[in-house]
């Protein structure tokens, strides 16, 4: 089996065991990133998504590889779920020539057009209006593609969000707006910055179909995103989906997340998306007790090798600095 991004994408499409494996891959990958930071081997910043794996894998499993995704800079999980290889993603995060931007982008700028992952913007909410234009191309050229914009709860307060939703509705564009509501916009709890706690209600202002989904249940994520994609492909316009989820770590590497109330993290970990999916799979006899631990061990082994390989891989040379500023 080839390890191309497209093949990796196809693997999880209708296979819940593979979906579990991908969620575990994301969890373990983020742990590696966390540790590499601690060791000083990753520069700058990263935004980890531990706890939100079901959203990433659910979205990626629901879309066609010809659809487009604009995602947030908390994007390692989305990139891996959509099909980018751990090697390419880690290379980019470590600034290596083998990264998707040859190491010139870093953690916040992952992209791979072969699987529809458009450049990831590090500006909160910026991808929302861009997705409407991607949808415009699809609508105009009748390609049947859907444009998905993934953003956090904090983005629902920025103007680009409101302008983008309005445009998508007015032009009836094939767009899916997916809000990962992890309850904190950077360091601030939602209620301290935002007038509503159910962010899906904001779509009502634009008379846009909307859903609130348990983002810890991958099956729920898939069901809703597939439904929204069908609406979009049938010319029935945009959908807004709020995924209720939680990030286990702080906002970025410099944030220990001491602002969380006691017990909140533990309560969410009781509903860990990997554990939830594993339970379903065991109850359906698709997996046995203990299989999950084996998968975790295997994943760790693979990712450790990836880490070694990437850490010792080539740095980009000076020529890259002058590339891709303009199209010829």
């Amino acid at each position, binding site marked *: 089996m080839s390890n191309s991004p497209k093949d990796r994408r196809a693997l999880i499409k209708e296979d819940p065991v593979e979906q579990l494996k991908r969620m575990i891959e994301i969890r373990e990958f983020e742990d590696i990133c966390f540790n590499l930071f601690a060791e000083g081997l990753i520069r700058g910043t990263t935004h980890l998504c531990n706890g939100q794996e079901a959203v990433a894998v659910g979205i990626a499993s629901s879309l066609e590889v010809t659809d487009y995704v604009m995602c947030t800079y908390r994007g390692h999980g989305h990139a891996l779920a959509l099909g980018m290889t751990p090697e390419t993603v880690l290379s980019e995060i470590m600034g290596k020539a083998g990264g998707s931007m040859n190491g*010139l982008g870093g953690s916040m700028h992952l992209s791979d*057009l072969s699987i529809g992952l458009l450049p990831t913007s590090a500006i909160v909410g910026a991808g929302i209006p861009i997705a409407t*234009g*991607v949808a415009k*191309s699809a609508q105009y050229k009748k390609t049947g593609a859907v444009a998905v914009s993934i953003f956090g709860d904090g983005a629902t307060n920025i103007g680009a969000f409101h302008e*983008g939703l309005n445009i998508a509705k007015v032009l009836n564009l094939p767009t899916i707006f997916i809000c990962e509501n992890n309850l904190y916009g950077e360091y601030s709890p939602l209620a301290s910055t935002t007038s509503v706690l159910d962010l899906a209600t904001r779509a009502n202002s634009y008379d846009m179909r909307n859903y609130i989904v348990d983002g810890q249940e991958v099956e729920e994520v898939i069901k809703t995103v597939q439904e929204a994609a069908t609406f979009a492909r049938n010319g029935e316009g945009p959908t807004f989906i709020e995924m209720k989820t939680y990030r286990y770590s702080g906002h970025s590497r410099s944030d220990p997340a001491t602002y969380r109330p006691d017990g909140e993290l533990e309560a969410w970990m009781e509903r860990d998306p990997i554990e939830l999916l594993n339970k379903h799979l065991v109850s359906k006899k698709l997996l046995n007790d203990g299989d999950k631990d084996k998968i975790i061990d295997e994943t760790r082994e693979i990712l450790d090798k990836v880490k070694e390989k990437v850490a010792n891989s080539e740095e980009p040379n000076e020529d890259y600095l002058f590339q*891709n500023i303009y199209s010829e």
Partner: protein
Amino acid sequence: MNESTDVILMGEDIAAAGGPWKTSDGLLDKFGPERVIDTPIAEMGFMGMALGAACTGLRPVVEIMFVEFLGVAIDQLSTEAAKFRYLSGGELSVPLVVRATTGAGLGFGAQHSQTLESWFYSTPGLKLAVVSNPQSAYGLLRSAINDDNPVVILEPRSLFANRDELIRGEEGFVPLGKSKIITEGNDVTIVGLGSTVESIKEASKKIGASSEVVDLLTLIPWDKETIVDSVKKTGRLVTVEENPYSGGWGSEIISYVTSKCYKELKAPPFRITAPDTHIPFNEALEKRYLPSVEYIEDSINKYVETNEVPQAWWEERRV
């Protein structure tokens, strides 16, 4: 739009109303609402939409009614569109054209009269050109639409009433990155951009010295070779700018040319600009604000005669 169905237009009131400046009059009827799109008053939103469309196969031309409105869209233009090719590792191109009207002289007041080239020229990834007459309005736009990069075209409103014979088709294209020598001369190189090109043409006819008049046309990337060659010949350089003194485009030109032609210079290069004030509504004061033909003529005469930079009329006024 006849040549490629990928070209679409977007902007406020450009479809049903034919455009606030009537630049898209009749196009809705001809090309339909899929290609000629009235947008909400939401520049950030529709600039982002244009970028998304541009990087997935269309060639959008966005109209911005007044260049100041780019202030609310600057993230999408400078931080997103200009960097999208880079951020895609070279996988994407962004054939996006943004037209914006600029400039003073028509009584639009402080927030609808600026030129604002300087908002863009420290942003690699963008191209920036400024229209100076009907032919360059046509020719720069055609080149911009054919270009695979985001191109901003600034159009001075004070020129909108000008009429001239137009050369259409490829012969009439004005290449990006090339300036145009309008009249040749030996004593002084006078560089204008946008609305000041007409002023320097007129002033040069009355100047005693033999002047080489250059329309810069493109600011990113600007035509270093033509200007340097001209200054090597004349030994004197004047930039005539509609913008305030501080941070104006002439600083960039003069800094480069001085470092390349220092030994050939007969006089220090010289900038004629507006003062570092806001743009007044009152008609007489607005005229005073802008560099007039007479002021340009008088300043350049003094400059060539003395080989010194004459004092600007506003230089001793404190703001």
